[in-house]
């Protein structure tokens, strides 16, 4: 019965993806690209331009005027072919652009809330530390200068400034703890669900945030109704739902990475936890196994997509990841306070400063060493092979563990 259900779900998804592939418009060079685009996250910035992807096309704009999350624009421009590190890329360079009035009340409200927090943080901390704090807490990328961005990338810790599942889970824990002291447990769960939704709106709708929020809400629903539900089951159900609603997500790297790393944390981490049963450095052991399992699960994809993999990534992550929950907690509280009593939030923001500056120093130090494996092309077969072996290992080892017990 259960397998029949899974088969039906899979079949439905396959049909949906098939129709999407059949129907999607393939853009070609010299075609005119016309679209009303709404920024569901901040456009990325380097020192000379702003850019974002729309329908698989890279759209570049001059640095000013700056566009923000929540705004809506009309774009019209010619599609050009350009060489890049990742091969040929279709680009719309400096298209004609005009601001359309955004009717999305939710987005514009969340934008003004974000701005309040951003201003309070940036007027309290030095620019790098401030940018990092906003990146960690809200996934805001545009306050981080391009040099620092490159350093974070070289050191392999760029994922901390992207809104990620970890953000959502820490935010959810924070809210739950806060409400649990005020109201009854079931009410607290309900409020936390709402809180997680608000947080998702505030951080922008990056796929990892959507994934983590749906997962968190499903998990809370399970707790609320008193049912037991396996996390892996929740993960796959969430992935299914997201793809069913937006079939194009299947080729989105951030969706793939988010899905795979969560899968790694749910399956590989328990194994690592039993293997690495040392007492030494117990306070970062959890970080070590989490990082390692996420890296194991995403390694081939990282190489395939970015053409490079930083060997520094692992040691740097071990050195800095323990600061993230602390920064999230102090920073999250400060962010919340910034909305009502900005002055009182400042001491809390300052509390993050030592951790942020430790983070920055480590990143600046390590980014000078360049230890990257780069591979130009990765055969698809080897990627599938890797995951097949990983899957078999996980299932077999898991089976053995339960038989020992």
């Amino acid at each position, binding site marked *: 019965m259960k397998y029949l259900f899974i088969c039906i779900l899979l079949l439905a998804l396959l049909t949906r993806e098939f129709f999407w592939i059949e129907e999607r418009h393939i853009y070609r060079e010299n075609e005119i690209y016309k679209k009303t685009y709404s920024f569901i996250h901040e456009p990325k910035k380097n020192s000379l331009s702003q850019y974002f992807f729309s329908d698989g096309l890279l759209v570049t704009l001059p640095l*000013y005027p700056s566009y923000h999350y929540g705004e809506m624009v009309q774009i019209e421009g010619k599609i050009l072919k350009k060489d890049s590190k990742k091969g040929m890329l279709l680009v719309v360079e400096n298209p004609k652009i005009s601001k359309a009035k955004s009717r999305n009340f939710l987005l514009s409200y969340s934008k003004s809330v974000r701005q309040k927090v951003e201003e309070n943080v940036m*007027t309290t901390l030095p*620019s790098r530390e401030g940018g990092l704090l906003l990146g960690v807490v809200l996934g805001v990328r545009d306050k981080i*200068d391009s040099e620092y961005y490159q350093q974070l990338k070289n050191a392999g810790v760029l994922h901390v400034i992207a809104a990620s599942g970890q953000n959502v889970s820490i935010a959810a824990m924070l809210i739950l703890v806060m409400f649990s002291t005020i109201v009854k447990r079931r009410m607290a769960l309900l409020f936390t669900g709402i809180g997680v939704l608000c947080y998702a709106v505030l951080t922008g709708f990056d796929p990892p945030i959507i994934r983590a929020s749906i997962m968190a809400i499903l998990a809370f629903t399970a707790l609320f109704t008193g049912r037991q539900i396996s996390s892996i089951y929740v993960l796959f159900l969430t992935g299914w739902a997201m793809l069913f609603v937006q079939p194009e997500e299947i080729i989105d790297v951030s969706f793939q990475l988010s899905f795979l790393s969560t899968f790694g944390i749910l399956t590989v981490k328990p194994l690592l936890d039993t293997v690495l049963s040392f007492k030494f450095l117990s306070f970062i052991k959890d970080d070590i196994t989490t990082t390692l399992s996420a890296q194991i699960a995403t390694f081939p994809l990282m190489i395939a997509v970015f053409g490079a993999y930083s060997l520094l990534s692992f040691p740097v992550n071990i050195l800095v990841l323990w600061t993230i929950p602390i920064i999230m907690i102090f920073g999250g509280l400060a962010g919340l306070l910034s909305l009502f009593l900005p002055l009182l939030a400042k001491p809390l923001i300052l*509390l993050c400063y030592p951790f942020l500056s430790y983070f920055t120093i480590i990143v600046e130090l390590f980014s000078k060493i360049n230890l990257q494996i780069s591979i130009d092309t990765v055969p698809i077969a080897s990627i599938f092979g890797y995951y097949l072996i990983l899957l078999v290992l996980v299932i077999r080892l898991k089976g053995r563990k339960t038989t020992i017990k």
Partner: protein
Amino acid sequence: MRRILLFGLLSIAFLCVLGAYHLIQFSDNKFHLIFCNVGQGDGILIRTPQGRDIIIDGGLYENSMTDCLSRHLPFWDRTIEVIYLTHPDADHLTGLIGVLKSYNVGYFGTPDAPKGTEVYKELMGLLDEKKITKHSILLGDGLKTKDGVTVSTYWPTSGFVDLKSEETNDYSLVQMVKYGKFHSLLTGDIPSTYLNSIMPQINYIDVFKPPHHGSKTGIDGFTFQHIVPRYAVLSYGYHNRYHHPSPDVLSILKKYNIPYKDTLKGDVEILSDGQKWSVKK
């Protein structure tokens, strides 16, 4: 919960140590004139003996000036008393956007030479949003701080502003910064014709910033006829489009035996107690 409190206390302890360190490092009761390494363009920070901050220009990138401020101000100092923008070109202006976004700014002054660029509009919008008035600066305008630093303006004259020149460089502020016996002439991007007409009014210069990042439009053979500065600081970036500094400018500096330093490798900081001055190594 106990762990969070522990980390909180740890953080407070660290902040106290850092605070003490910054207090010793930055409160030396001296006058500081810092030519920031802004990558491209000009960015100058003046820190008075009592810790008041004056900024003249901000460099080409939004973070160029704020990075420099992080290096030279204690972390609790989030107020910039005065900002001057010598003229509205992007390589002088953009960094000020970053400063306005993350510091409390008391005063903003610039010559009356608006520009239609998007960066300029962004800056003006930001000034409006923060309710900071834009003051038009002319010959004779300036300031004097309680701890004895003066800034006085030599250019543009009101007669010149009325001419409505097309070239924004022509309006560039030329200002003398004084502390006790120390004199420094800061010139923005002023062309040599106007600079040469100003030089006779000046009788002493310790540190001189050749205009326009060492471009040959900035100084010529006549500039140092009346007065020879004792030191020059050139502000320019690597691989800049215009190949600053020009060999002509360097040879003029050599001819008059003016030692110079550039901002390529890092900020150039000048210290003074009002009597003597030195370049920080």
